[in-house]
């Protein structure tokens, strides 16, 4: 085994994974992140409860929260419901892990734009401010290499390159209280001109990657699980090293996606010619 850290058995441990407001933030398939986390924990013997938390009920207590992408109106409602309840903020202080994606990334920051571009208050878990971009929406495959100060795996290694699909019109600027997650190699990412993608601070992580991100980047999934299973007393101690899983299908998907983005573009005229050929 190549893992540099001692693999800890987590069999029999309990874990609650909460998908936050799928009724408001379920537009882009990001609910899959909750499923990926729950299955990967269960496959290692953890007793997992996967909760789909509706927006009209108090947010349940959980160890790991995923906040997905959604449309502008529902995003505003989700942010105010989360801020009012106060559960997410308290649970983060108690050591819970949060993954925000796209609209979910924006709304766990300090502020984000509504449909009219007016700033709305976010939950404030990340020192990130988002405004409406001037250009066209960022839509397409996104590849980003984790930055030097991005969180490391349980083995102390940097995370592998991140792959996903972005679809957003916001520009996110990271303040001094947070750190970029990765540097964009292909695509737009945060879009503020500094080439960054996503942000993190403590055990709170935000990204523009759909896919869902954890299905395409299982090392990131295991990092979040490792944090959640390390427990509240190990906030500075890094993630628990988990038993490796047989991820051949995820690795094949990653390789294919990265290759698709890295491959030189086939010129349009050549594609047109190929279509013209009989048969």
């Amino acid at each position, binding site marked *: 085994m190549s893992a540099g850290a001692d693999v800890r058995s987590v069999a029999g441990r309990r874990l609650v994974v909460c998908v936050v407001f799928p*009724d408001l933030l379920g*537009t882009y*398939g990001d609910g899959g992140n909750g499923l990926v986390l729950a*299955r990967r924990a269960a496959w290692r013997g953890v007793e997992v409860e996967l909760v789909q938390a509706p927006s009209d009920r108090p947010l349940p207590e959980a160890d790991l929260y995923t906040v997905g992408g959604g449309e502008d*109106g529902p995003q505003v409602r989700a942010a105010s419901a989360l801020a009012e309840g106060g559960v997410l903020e308290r649970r983060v202080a108690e050591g819970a892990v949060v993954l925000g994606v796209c609209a979910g990334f924006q709304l766990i920051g300090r502020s984000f734009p509504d449909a009219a571009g007016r700033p709305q208050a976010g939950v404030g878990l990340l020192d990130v401010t988002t405004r409406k971009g001037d250009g066209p929406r960022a*839509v397409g495959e996104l590849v980003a290499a984790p930055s030097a100060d991005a969180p490391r795996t349980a083995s102390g290694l940097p995370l592998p390159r991140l792959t996903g699909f972005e679809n957003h019109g916001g520009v996110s600027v990271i303040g001094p209280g947070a750190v970029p997650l990765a540097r964009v190699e292909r695509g737009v990412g945060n879009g503020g001109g500094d080439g960054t993608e996503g942000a993190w601070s403590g055990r709170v992580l935000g990204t523009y990657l759909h896919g869902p991100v954890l299905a395409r980047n299982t090392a990131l999934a295991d990092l979040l699980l490792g944090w959640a299973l390390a427990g509240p007393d190990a906030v500075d101690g890094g993630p628990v090293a988990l038993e490796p899983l047989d991820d051949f*299908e995820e690795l*094949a998907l990653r390789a294919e996606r990265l290759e698709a983005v890295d491959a030189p573009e086939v010129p349009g005229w050549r594609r047109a010619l190929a279509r013209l050929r009989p048969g």
Partner: protein
Amino acid sequence: MTVRPTARPGAPSGLRTTTAVGAVSAVNRLSRALGRGSGTVAGGRAGLAVDPGLLGVLATGRRVALVSGTNGKTTTTRLLATAVAGVDGVGPVVSNDTGANMPAGHVAALAGAPDATVAVLEVDEGYLGRLVGDAHPDVIVLLNLSRDQLDRIAEVRMLVDRWRTALGGLAAPGPAAAGTVVVANADDPMVAFAAGTAPRVRWVGAGQVWHDDAVGCPACGGRIRFPDDGRWACDRCDFARPALDAEVVGDELVLSDGTRHPIRLALPGQFNRANAGMVAVAAVPLLEAAGGRDGNGGAPTVDLVLGRLASVTEVAGRFATVPRGGADVRLLLAKNPAGWTAVFDLLEESGDVAAPVVLSVNARTADGLDTSWLWDVPFERLVGRSIVATGDRRLDLAVRLRYAEVAHDVVDGPLAALDHAVRVAGDGRSVEFLGNYTAFADLRRAL
């Protein structure tokens, strides 16, 4: 100034339009000669480039029906065209049945059928406003609105707002004209909100299993509740399901006068019975406008319409059964989470529950480039069946199936995948093939 009626419906009047129609057929001939298919869209584009008002000119003098929505457009368009074509008193009917559902496709279909007096047009959701403005429809059928191709088309609520504006501009019925009849699915709050601005609506309770895109009230931002009796309502404002003019209940269409009318189709699935119910309600005013009569010279009725729909056994290959290596393969197409969920219902309701299922997914421009939607599809329902994943994005499917804990094989190429499934099925058994848009087309081409 007097306006002389044109000699025949849709006939070119004026030099610019004549040139534009000429451009349509010239490009179509060139396209066919180059082996680029029928070239209908290329021709339509050329025509619109010469005369941007061509669509309106070509529609003039015809009775026009539009069919739009996220899912079921092509099948519903075919059912509606079948319902009216050949009815006593109705002239030739034209329909854009190749799936080219944007203005260039409409222009090509209309320019290619100058004698047709009735046009039944499938319309891409994003172009409904333009068609409403240009084609002066007699009837508009609105099926449903849910997430689809998020990278390309506006999100659901933006589409709703655009529909609402377009339908609000329809003329109210008056002494001179009957006004456009909008036939809308009352069970979909997004459709109900969009159609709420139209002056003349026939509300059909056609059912809608997929509610994930309609939880937030489009009127006030409150929450829409979906009780078991189907009478959804917002918990904050007075937006609620409109009073129904007709409802699809199982295999019957129940009208508000209490009469029940059997829906008997060759096509499978509850969603097709729902489509047929919408067609029955829409075809009656379309037939009235087109001068249609029943066999005894009487006014057209829903029973006249429903009786004609069983002749449709497949729609551009969808729902067809083809033999392959001793097995019967049923071909199914669905493009988004709502569509795939409806097809899973169909797999459980009709067909062999032990039949292997080939799933094929592409992510080309026509499909939407983002495959994240696969995680909104309840693949968990396939546990216990033999599954073969194929298509350009078979690896995305494979990972999704792994997390659904559904055993599967991955095979490159739709025919190879089909043959693999046929071998798994064994002699005399059946196989289901479900693909999204271009994946389905790939298989049909290969067969």
